[in-house]
């Protein structure tokens, strides 16, 4: 996983935060304790969706009070 972000204070209590996170998986079962981790090209096919590459792009605006 690699993440990059920028956080800018637009006003005294208002913030803008663009960010990007990229996940790269080699094995199944990330975050789970059930089942043996498997290489993503292993057979049989996994029962639930397992991503090998995912990118999340966010733009957050935060007001603090």
């Amino acid at each position: 996983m690699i993440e990059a972000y920028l956080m800018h204070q637009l006003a005294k209590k208002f913030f803008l935060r663009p960010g990007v996170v990229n996940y790269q998986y080699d094995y199944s079962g990330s975050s789970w304790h059930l089942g043996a981790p498997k290489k993503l090209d292993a057979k049989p096919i996994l029962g639930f969706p397992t991503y090998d590459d995912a990118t999340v792009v966010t733009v957050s605006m935060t007001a603090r009070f």
Partner: protein
Amino acid sequence: MYKTWGDSTAVQVFNGQANSLNIDGNTAGVPNSDILRVERAYFTWNNIAGLPLYLSIGRRPSTGGPPMNLRKGQLRGGTPMGALIDFQFDGITVGYHLGEHSTLRLCYGRGYESGFGNGHVLQQPADRLKDADFAGINWDIWSDDTMLVQTTVARAFHITDGFNGLIVLPTNPLTGQPVNAPVVMRFTPSANLGDMDIAGLLVQRKDGPFDWFVTLGYIKSHPEPVTTPFGGLFSDPFQRPTSHSGTMYYLGGRYTFDGNRTMGGLSTTTVPSIGSILPRPKTTSLRRRPQPGAT
């Protein structure tokens, strides 16, 4: 309130990831609905018997711990290392201030309550589950305005094959066949799978405008010879679980500029997988539990 834009269904179709499960540990942390939820509520009794000793009980401040708060530009939001524990739970902390810059805490928490609400009196005693609890240490070895050195060490006992929660399954996990109707079911665990150790060390510093951190983490499983149709502890269905261990690191930095108005950050983490297979010395017969289901 944490909701999807344009949706308040509150129960999502399971997408294979934990963000589509609603369980006690993440109800406030995953998209849900327009329902207002309480993430933490606890009291703290300070200076017990005139000592630098305190007792804190309730729904714990266990999310947003260091260094995860840096990426949001926030103050420390939770007690344990955020790279290891970022999960709501009900628990107790006994803390002792060893000095101005060091606090040692003994922590306990419940992950799964097997009694109330699970209909266990309707089950045979042998089929009733044990509570899943954890106990551990959260030690701020050094904490001041410019540096935090922290360790979190804990063991979870009687980990279950899931948590109580609501779910919509798109496919039958046993057969792989699609479930044609979006049925909301109350998922409940069916087995205690074993114990798990976690340990970590965090070094976080602020050097002028530059904040940086290094986190190391370790995990080791201690499975019981139990399997389910979904698998055992890090083992496939109907295979004998063996003990596994794994490590991870998480490091990053954040630079503040523009008169403290702008911060730029970069972080990365790698989990080299749960790899080392350590045979469990105890060998007993393999127990199989029925499929987890609705109650």
